[in-house]
């Protein structure tokens, strides 16, 4: 969804060029926010300030942002164990997310969910899910519900290449296609299921697994936010019109380990491979490069944005670090509604 300032702009009679500029700068800011948020999470882990582990989204920012910017605030998403990027892209605020990651009462789930279970009704985030493929049913059910309630909301289901191993995904894609449900399946193929290359676990054509069910399927460069956004917009508006589900196969890469503790990666992937993606295929670099090329922005603008985001991240982290833990009595609340 567009942020306030941007929507104002588009409200006024602004030149197409200004609108373009505003839109892509906003997406740049969103991607950078995810990048810096995750780097800060990693610090919190390394300094033993965060309980447990976290699965960082660094490198994949263009997918969450390109897709979520094509959604309305009242549209739904479901997310994964690698969910921070999806939450932020759908509009979650940095401070409440940090608070959740630290198990504080101020967090989105009062500290009960943590990194793998952040949910935020207000922005239509039905929750991250720690069961691989576990949210496919929820997302498809939410899409069915929008249709039943007569709204034109669309639901996006984010998942990784590993989720293609889970049978329930095929069960629900079948129903989504049968009943033309407004759901978009976004597969983030970052090449690995944990520590195993997807080619060792995934036979045949990935995209064919969705098109077999009669679902409109597109393969996408997941590092190019403009391509992601364009294709997402098309599939989402099509679904909104009742023309059925879509599937986006996004090729991408995670820069860090499977989780923050996965430091020694040599046995499953090479430094060269990591370097190649970081230098040649970085979603932020690709966007800044294009914006500069087009004369839509220059380094001063990027610096200004970076400072704004940096400040927000630092304030959010500090807020979370200072926030109190939940009361012990909270352990027994919210078991039943």
């Amino acid at each position: 969804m567009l942020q306030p300032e941007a929507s104002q702009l588009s409200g006024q009679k602004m030149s197409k060029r200004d609108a373009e500029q505003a839109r892509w700068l906003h997406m740049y800011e969103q991607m950078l926010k995810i990048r810096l948020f995750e780097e800060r999470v990693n610090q919190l882990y390394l300094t033993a300030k965060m309980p447990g582990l976290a699965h960082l989204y660094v490198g994949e920012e263009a997918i969450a942002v390109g897709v979520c910017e094509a959604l309305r605030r009242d549209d739904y998403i479901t997310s994964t164990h690698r969910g921070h990027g999806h939450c932020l892209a759908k509009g979650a605020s940095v401070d409440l997310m940090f608070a959740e990651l630290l198990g504080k009462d101020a967090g989105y789930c009062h500290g009960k969910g943590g990194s793998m279970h952040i949910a935020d009704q207000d922005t239509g985030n039905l929750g991250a899910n720690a069961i691989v493929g576990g949210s496919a049913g929820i997302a498809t059910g939410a899409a069915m519900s929008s249709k039943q309630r007569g709204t034109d909301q669309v639901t996006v289901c984010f998942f990784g290449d590993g989720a293609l191993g889970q049978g329930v995904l095929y069960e629900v894609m079948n129903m989504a296609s049968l009943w033309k449900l407004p759901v978009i399946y976004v597969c983030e193929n970052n090449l690995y299921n944990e520590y195993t290359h997807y080619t060792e676990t995934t036979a045949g054509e990935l995209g064919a697994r969705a098109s077999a069910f009669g679902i409109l399927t597109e393969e996408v460069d997941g590092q190019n936010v403009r391509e992601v956004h364009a294709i997402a917009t098309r599939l989402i508006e099509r679904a909104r019109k009742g023309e059925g589900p879509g599937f986006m196969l996004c090729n991408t890469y995670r820069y860090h380990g499977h989780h923050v503790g996965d430091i020694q990666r040599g046995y499953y992937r090479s430094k060269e491979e990591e370097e190649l993606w970081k230098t040649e295929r970085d979603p932020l670099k690709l966007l800044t490069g294009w914006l500069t090329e087009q004369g839509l922005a220059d380094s001063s603008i990027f610096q200004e944005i970076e400072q704004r985001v940096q400040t927000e991240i630092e304030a959010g982290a500090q807020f979370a670090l200072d926030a109190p833990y939940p009361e012990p009595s909270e352990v027994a609340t919210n078991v039943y509604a």
Partner: protein
Amino acid sequence: MSMLDTAANETRQNVRVITLGQAIKEALAEEMRRDPRVFIMGEDVAEAGTPFKVLSGLVEEFGTSRVIDSPISEAGITGLGVGGAMTGMRPIIDIMFGDFIALAMDQIVNQAAKVHYMSGGKLKVPLVIRTTLGATRRTAAQHSQSLHAWVSHVPGLKVVLPSTPYDAKGLLKTAIRDENPVVFFEDKLMYQLKGPVPDSDYTIPFGVADIKRAGTDITLVATSSMVQVALAAAEKLAELGISAEVVDPRTTFPLDKSTLIESAKKTSRAIVIDEGYERYGVTAEIASVIADGAFYYLDAPVKRMGAMDVPVPFSPVLEDLTVPPADTVMEVAKALCGRV
């Protein structure tokens, strides 16, 4: 008919004798009329009305948009139910045979049961899963299990086991109006059981056991299909001058511990009867609750009678041995009461 039941007064009027299957259908129809968010999804639920014909007629009244035939995808339809419940609908998912919940356990336990808690109370899952239990229908090991112990074990779920047409209607309405995931088990053989049911609207609260027969010498705690067995045993025991009290918890969670314990304190003897596998089953929880709560009042150990710990065999001569019959319950009760 507990005084706690809502509309207990009106229900005094317009009471018909109908089957448990008809009571289920009536509850569904009334709730679907009352609340447009309620819908049913499952395999062969529409024109076929399920293989048990329990839903016959509903699709004619509510149409295929509210009585939805699904693919054979137990995990998938349960998942759709969870997502629908989280976003403003009140789905009722029909899982034909209780054995098939094994296919949907992740959706029921890791998703439905935990969403409310994991979200810190922000999201809720008002979902009903209707399924079945019970053996002796000659359908062998994969269509005869009573697996309610599994879901009774899991925080976040409520579990209902109606034993009469009256309870079935009132409990199902409560389940549909509950804000939490509820697993509702129906005994396949009891669909034809007849009993008095008000045609008016009433609900039965969860966590309130029902004394199906009052007695003073021994407590027979029985669930679902075993309530009729316990009542038959109580009848035989009466002939021997032994007064048995038959208590039906009606919900395994929430569990009405105090009523169970009070009855055992009064009679000082108890047997727990349930059609699930005996080992690590529902009888273990209830027996240990009574053995603890009535410890200083018991004259004999609490006995458990569940299904025999074997896969359900096909051959009738074998299958009939796996479920406790009234005679055996009577014998065990006699022995507990020191009669031989």
